[in-house]
């Protein structure tokens, strides 16, 4: 029983970590009023750049940072279109999701002799060292360092959004940009920065997959994580703590799938695999209910328009 509980916690945190990064990115972007459907694409870019950088530098920490930068670079495209040029944010995000896997695979094939996956690359350490508790059940609680970083980022984002002047400005820009503008807040700059940070977080999310969990980039390393993260943003009502909780819930149901699948249960594995997705819908229907987006979410701000 204790073993199962430990296993459950360990797997939950492992599964939820990349989602947390992606969801936090979604939160900051959407709180500033820019819908970011492109989280998935930015995570893919993070995944490939982290794996490549880790391979070429042999230093996963540098790789982690490179992934953040590359994620932000892709996000700059989204920001340029949706903030500077007042483009349709949904369309721009969808374009990012098309572009990113293309770029990722093109880069991968160019760097690694036409292979659609990288070799095994150096990984980020675990919090108690790589071999602590090896062979015991406690090894499951020897978390990836990225799990801790994700939690720290969630707390930091909560603090910034709700306890600092800049956070108040971000929220103002997302709720009523015209009002914020009259108070002298630069709406465009605030949104641009938020989208860049969003891309950086998503890049970290990709890196936390390829340099902490599976230690290589493959075509399916990021498959739908960004979309689940996007759902977690809405589920968590556009708050960092809510999004974090939504990711944990999702990770927990995934862990249940693993645990139940290992037992002697007659439920077919494919049906069991549906559990996290059903659970999400059921939780939403029963407990969460109506979600209200930031008021100006998805609306390009055009100076002077009413």
């Amino acid at each position, binding site marked *: 029983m204790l073993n199962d509980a430990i296993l459950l916690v360990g797997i939950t945190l492992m599964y939820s970590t990349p989602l947390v990064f992606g969801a936090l990115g979604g939160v900051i972007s959407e709180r500033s009023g820019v819908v970011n459907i492109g989280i998935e694409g930015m995570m893919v870019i993070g995944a490939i750049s982290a794996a490549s950088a880790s391979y070429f530098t042999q230093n996963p920490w540098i790789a982690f940072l490179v992934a953040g930068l590359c994620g932000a670079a892709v996000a700059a495209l989204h920001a340029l279109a949706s903030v500077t040029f007042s*483009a349709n944010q949904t369309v721009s995000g*969808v*374009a990012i999701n098309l572009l990113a*896997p*293309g770029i990722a*695979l093109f880069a991968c*094939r160019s760097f690694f002799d036409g292979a659609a996956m990288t070799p095994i690359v150096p990984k980020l350490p675990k919090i108690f060292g790589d071999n602590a508790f090896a062979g015991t059940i406690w090894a499951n609680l020897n978390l990836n360092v990225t799990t801790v970083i994700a939690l720290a980022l969630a707390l930091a984002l909560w603090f910034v959004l709700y306890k600092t002047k800049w956070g108040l400005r971000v929220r103002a820009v997302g709720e009523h940009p015209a009002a914020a503008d009259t108070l002298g807040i630069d709406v465009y700059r605030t949104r641009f920065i938020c989208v860049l940070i969003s891309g950086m977080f998503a890049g970290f999310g990709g890196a936390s997959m390829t340099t902490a969990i599976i230690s290589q980039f493959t075509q399916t390393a990021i498959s739908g994580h960004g979309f689940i993260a996007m759902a977690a943003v809405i589920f968590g009502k556009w708050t960092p703590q809510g999004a974090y909780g939504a990711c944990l819930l999702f990770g927990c149901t995934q862990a249940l799938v693993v645990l139940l699948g290992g037992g002697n249960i007659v439920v077919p594995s494919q049906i069991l695999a549906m559990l996290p997705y059903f659970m999400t819908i059921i939780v939403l229907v029963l407990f969460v*209910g*109506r*979600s209200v987006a930031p008021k100006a979410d998805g609306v390009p701000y055009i100076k002077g328009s009413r």
Partner: protein
Amino acid sequence: MNTLIRFLRKPIASAIVAVAVGFAVAAVVLAVAGFAPGRSFAALFQGALGRPKYIANVIIKATPILLTGVAVAFAYQTGLFNIGAEGQYIAGTIVATIVGVTFDFPAPIQILLVIVSGALAGALLGAFIGFLKARFGIHEVITSIMTNWIMLYLCNFIVSTDAFHKTNSTSAIPINPSGYTMVLPNWKRSEAGIEFLNNIPWLKDVLLKTDLNFGFLIAVAVAILAGILLARTELGYELRAVGHNRDAAHFAGINVEKNIILAMLISGTFCGLAGVLNITGISPHTITTIAAMEGYGFNGLSVAFIAGCSTVGCIPASLLFAGLIYGGMTVQQVMGAPSDIISIMIGTIVFFTALPGVMPLLADVIERRTASAGDPPAPHTEVPPELPAQDRAVRVDNGKGGEE
């Protein structure tokens, strides 16, 4: 000059420029990676249009993404973002396979039965998403993403069941041939048919080497009908009114909840239809185990957005998209360039279609230039000044407030 300005203000200009930029970006990427762009594009066109059977394959590939594109465009015009097209597509394929395997009626009845049941599956799934939004206020994006995965696993489950699993394979049993929708499936393989086709090489190429089917015609009809439904009927008006301003629509006496469900139901029907037509129209005529999303829904998003969310515009957009994807395979074979270049190209095209405001802006600039050069000013609407009067007033007020 005036015709140029007028042209630049039309949506089609933005689309053409977006495609041109897509090719330009792809050319740069190819050149940087060491592949000759000119020869790569030649291979692309050769691979998409070089032989009658290639063209037929492009049309076959365009069919499902035309329908999912229309579904996304339709939902978008009613204020809903149907990212669940993928799941509704899979629902269509699953039910089409189950019904097509279980029953074996004469062809016309069988085809009708399979198509209706598959489309219904997509419709119900869409309506479910719409219901959750209308009744509980749950964002359609969440439920769509969740149902996409549920349908993926359901598909894999059905493939694995004893009743439908085809032994020693990763797919289910193919549907009964009475449900096939190819063009003359039996005649073209008969002796008389082959003898006849030997005289017409291009037709032989198309019929015998591809699964040319009637799906595209159905898809085109759906695109046109969906456009008419939205633009010319009372229902379409109500759907768009709800999408445009929910509160105003409610105030005007429109049943908002009913219309949300209805919009998703119709959108889902199109996706389900896309799934069915792939089962009845092309081999292997069945569902197979899927490891990751196959992209029919997500490609539908791209098609819809390239088309500016016009349902009829999805027809050329889907052909362009299918042509690029199908021709891209030839680029990889001939040039050795990764076919992912096509994703980069399509992504760029969609990215630039997101910027519809740029072309009219360019038109304004040209208009101003020509006006100042002494030409008679083009008879068109006034260009708004960059900083409207009220905004300037507000800024001045603000400055004063600070001083006091």
